[in-house]
Structures are given as C-alpha cells and as structure tokens.
C-alpha cells in the first residue's frame, strides 16, 4: 500500500476502502525500518501522527468534509517552524528550539488533512549541497548509502525516495530542492519566488529562499504544490495572483512547445554520463512533438560568484538574531555581552555557516561593498535579463539539474569551492526567481540523473504539464531504489 501514489491512496481513503490509521501504521512501520540505514529524520512523531489519523477517521465516519490531502503521511524539512516538534535547522544553536507558532505551509498542510510524521535532516541553516553540514548526523542516498542524498533538503528527498513518506516539503535557495530530488531519483519543484509564503521558514537569504515540494510522480507533486501555494498576509513578498489547480490542469493539452537548451552554460562542468542522459531526454521531448532549440544565457556562468556573494550577505544579516539572548544556545560563563555573542556563535554555528557569515560580512563591509555586493546585484540583473530574452524565443528551458552523478559522502567536504560548483545549473534560475522542476530522466551506473524544466514567472502549471507528459513517455516515476526492493521482499 505504501508503494502506491498518494493520489490513489487519497481515493481509497475517500471511498472508505482504506482508513487513515491503516495508512499511518504501515507508513510508520516502514519509515522506522528504513531509518536505521538512511537517517532522514531529526525528529519522528509516531504518537502525534497516529492521533491525527484517529481524528481523521472519526471525521470520515461522520461523513464530515476532509481536506485534499486527508490521511497522507508527509515530512517537513527542519528549517520550517512546527509548534509540536523542535525546529533545529540542523544546527546546535537551535538544538532545543520549539517554535511558538506554525509556518503558514504547516497550517495549510494540516488544514488539508496531511499528517506530518517528522522533521527531516538538512545542511545547517540550509547551507550546503550534501546534507553533510548537519550538526547532528549524515543522511544516506537510498540508491547507494555510501553517497550523499544532495542538499540542503537531503532528509526530505531521502524520505520520499525511500517511501518513508509519500510527500515532503523542502526549501530551495540556490538548488536545495532540485539537486536532492535529482540525486534521489524523485520529482522536486521550486515554485516562482513569492508563490509560497515564507512565514515560518527560517530565513537564510530572503531574496532567494522559497519553499518547495517533493514527490515520486507529477500528479502528487502538483497536488502538494497547489495546497501550499498562495498569498499570505503574513509574508509581504508573497504574490497576490490566484493559484491555478495544477493537479486538475495536468490533463489539458499543452500543444507544441518550444524547449530551449542553454548549451553555452552547459559547456562548463557537464560530465559524460549526465550529458548522455540529458540528450536522450531531449529526444523523448522531440518524439512527443516538442521543438528543441538552442538559447543563450551568456551571464549564467557567473551565477556561482554572484550567488555566493548575495546569499551570504543576506545570511550574515539574517543570522545576526542568533545571539544567545532570546532563544537558542547561550555560551556558559560569559560576563561581558560582546564576548557572550562571540562565544555563543562560535560554539553554536558549524564551519560552513561561519564561512558564509564571514563572506557575507566581508562583502557588505566598508570599502568592499561596491566591488562585491553591489556588483553581484548588478550581475544578478544581467542573469535575469538573459532569461527574459530567452523566453521571448521559447516556452520552457531544459537543462540538467546537477553536472554530476551523486557524489560520495566525504568527497567534497574539505573543498568549499568544489561543493559550491555542484549548484552550477540551479543557481542562475534562483537568482532570476523563476519556477523550476527537477524530474528523473535516467539511471546511470545505478544512480539517478535529473533534468530541470524552467519556465517564466508563474508558469508552474505549464511546467507540471510538460513534466507529466515526459513522465508518461519515459515511464520514470515511482522508482524503487535497491534498498527498498530488498527490504520489501
């Protein structure tokens, strides 16, 4: 039952062939079985989840209205605030933090009847591409437990890929939903900046942060995305435009789309396995009647330096709040306020977070601000304009999600720059604030490869439709990693 798509389970629950309690019990049993090997979760809440399922069952018995995700077990990244579970952001500095409120997306999930079974591991404050920067432990890739699941939302991606949950939320600042989705062989959506409320998402780089979604097939992903999207008066950067029903629009015709490929950006870093998988994927689109054209994004290759100046600058300001006064860790025995700040932050933050705070503070400091921070903001404009020009020629842009296959645990932790390069193809899209999905397109050496489909602002519906068409042509959805096959046998 837990290997079924969420939309089928929903139907069974609504028709009373399956009870939410049966679903949650089977899910929890499986999740706990896999947890010893993969470690997706920082917190699991089996009692809370079971209580929710019982309440839902009562409602169903009485014939009361239940939401569009009623009874579906989901996971939430641990940088999204939940009242009933700690929210640590994978950091020692928030190790025991129990938020006094729920994030808007958490409220929306609960109103929709989804059951949050736990909070997932991530790189500390979402800074990283492998989930190895979590202060607590590493998460394994279910396709090869010696490899990283990607990051920073690695726990969410692993939990969905290994069937511990049907759906999960992550956050994507420079690729943190798309890259782990690609590494774990599942679907991941980063909506347009402002499409989903950031209220209750712990801030990293506010002009880039966006909550995103994970699922094992497009219909499930479309449904979850429409549930969490929409305007929120508590986030003034959330967009007022109404949210289309992505899941209902999936079957409406797409026509003949023009798909652009930015070969100029792909000259850098693309490995032969990923290139081959990507070219095969383009052929699938061609067979489906889409026109493949070349587009140019001449400034996109400047994305990494641009992003790693802007995002740390914003982070250095956002993370100033962790000072040991109002919440979180406080260093012991300090009698002077400034030394209390320094010691608390020195003890509480891990190396990557400190590195980014230092970079950001530098980029904003007197004498360097114009040459680094302001310059990067100008290059951001150029990158954004490249996309605007490209979308005058084509409807969507396709490119690989990651230049490489999932790498080994420990392979890149000592070399920050090589870790940063793994976001080469996701970052330009984040800088432009555009919606993008990552979908599985192949298995190479037993490891998944993902492709991004990018559209103009608020084109989520079109992206889902094109992805659904691809999913049906390729048959690459609801994939089962070997560990899942073994343990379910």
């Amino acid at each position, binding site marked *: 039952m837990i290997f079924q798509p969420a939309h089928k389970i929903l139907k069974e629950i609504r028709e009373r062939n399956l009870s939410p309690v049966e679903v949650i019990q089977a899910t929890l049993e499986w999740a706990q079985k896999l947890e010893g090997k993969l470690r997706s979760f920082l917190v699991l809440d089996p009692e809370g989840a079971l209580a929710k399922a019982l309440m839902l069952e009562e409602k169903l018995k009485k014939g009361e209205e239940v939401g569009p995700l009623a009874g579906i077990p989901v996971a939430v990244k641990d940088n999204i605030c939940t009242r009933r579970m700690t929210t640590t952001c994978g950091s020692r500095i928030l190790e025991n933090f129990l938020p006094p409120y729920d994030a808007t997306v958490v409220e929306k999930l609960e109103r929709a009847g989804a059951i949050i079974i736990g909070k997932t591991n991530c790189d500390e404050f979402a800074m990283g591409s492998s989930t190895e920067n979590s202060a607590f432990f590493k998460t394994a890739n279910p396709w090869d437990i010696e490899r990283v699941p990607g990051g920073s939302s690695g726990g969410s991606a692993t939990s969905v890929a290994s069937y511990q949950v049907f759906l999960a939320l992550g956050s994507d600042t420079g690729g943190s939903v798309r890259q782990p989705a690609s590494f774990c062989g599942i679907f991941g959506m980063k909506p347009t900046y402002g499409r989903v409320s950031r209220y209750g998402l712990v801030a990293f780089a506010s002009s880039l942060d966006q909550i995103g979604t994970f699922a094992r097939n497009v219909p499930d992903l479309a449904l979850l995305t429409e549930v969490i999207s929409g305007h929120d008066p508590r986030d003034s950067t959330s967009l007022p435009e109404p949210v289309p029903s992505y899941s209902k629009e999936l079957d409406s015709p797409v026509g003949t789309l023009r798909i652009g490929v930015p070969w100029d950006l792909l000259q850098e870093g693309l490995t032969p396995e990923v290139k081959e998988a990507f070219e095969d994927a383009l052929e699938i689109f061609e067979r489906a009647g889409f026109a493949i054209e070349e587009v140019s994004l001449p400034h996109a290759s400047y994305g990494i330096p641009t992003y790693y100046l802007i995002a740390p600058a914003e982070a250095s300001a956002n993370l100033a709040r962790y000072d040991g006064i109002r919440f979180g860790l406080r260093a012991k025995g300090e009698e002077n306020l400034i030394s209390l700040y*320094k010691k608390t932050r020195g003890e509480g933050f891990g190396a990557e977070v400190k590195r980014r705070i230092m970079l950001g503070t*530098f980029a904003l400091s007197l004498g*360097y601000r114009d040459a680094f921070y302001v310059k990067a*903001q100008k290059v951001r404009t150029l990158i954004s304009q490249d996309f605007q020009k490209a979308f005058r020629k084509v409807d969507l842009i396709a490119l690989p999600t990651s230049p490489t296959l999932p790498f080994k645990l420990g392979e890149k932790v000592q070399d920050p720059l090589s870790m940063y390069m793994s976001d080469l193809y996701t970052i330009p899209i984040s800088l432009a604030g555009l919606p993008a999905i990552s979908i599985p397109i192949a298995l190479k050496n037993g490891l998944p490869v993902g492709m991004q489909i990018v559209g103009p602002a608020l084109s989520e519906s079109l992206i889902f439709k094109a992805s659904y068409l691809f999913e049906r042509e390729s048959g690459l959805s609801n994939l089962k990693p070997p560990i899942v096959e073994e343990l379910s046998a």
Partner: protein
Amino acid sequence: MKITLEIVKHIAHLARLEFSEEELKQFYQQMVELLDHFARISELDTENVPPTSGILPLYNVMREDNPGPTLPREEALKNAPEEESGFFKIPTILEAED
C-alpha cells in the same frame, strides 16, 4: 585588492564570531581562494545596469493596521536561555563607575 589576516580578524569581530587562531588561519586561506574566484564578476561591464535587490514586481506592500492576537509573554519567553520577572536576562552591559 589583497585581503590580509588582519582584515579577516576584523570581519570576525564585526560578525561577532569567536575563532581559535588555527581556525582563523584556515578561514583566511579559504576566503582568499573563494574571493579570488568570485572576483571574476569584475570583468563584466555593468556601467548602466541597475542592481537587483528583489525579484518581484511588488513595491510598498501595505495592509490594514488592524489589531490582532499577539504572542503571550510566557510563550515569547519559553525559549529564552535565561529570564527573570518576565524579561530576557543578559550579562551586565554598563560598567559601574566608582
């Protein structure tokens, strides 16, 4: 432009981060390497290009100023490392004059 260990020490002070000497040297080397790579953006001509600080076409978002429920004091203090009489407690910030 060359950054020095002294500059990195100053940045650590501004960022309110404590480092051991060894950590600081490692960070210094990594920052030199990263900033060297990031300096690539200086080769682009951005003479007449406006900076992007936010990507949305939204300006001056206003809402009605209606009173609503706020966090009760005990909830707001729940996560405080130290509190006293309903306040956050911090170390002395003023030195006594005598």
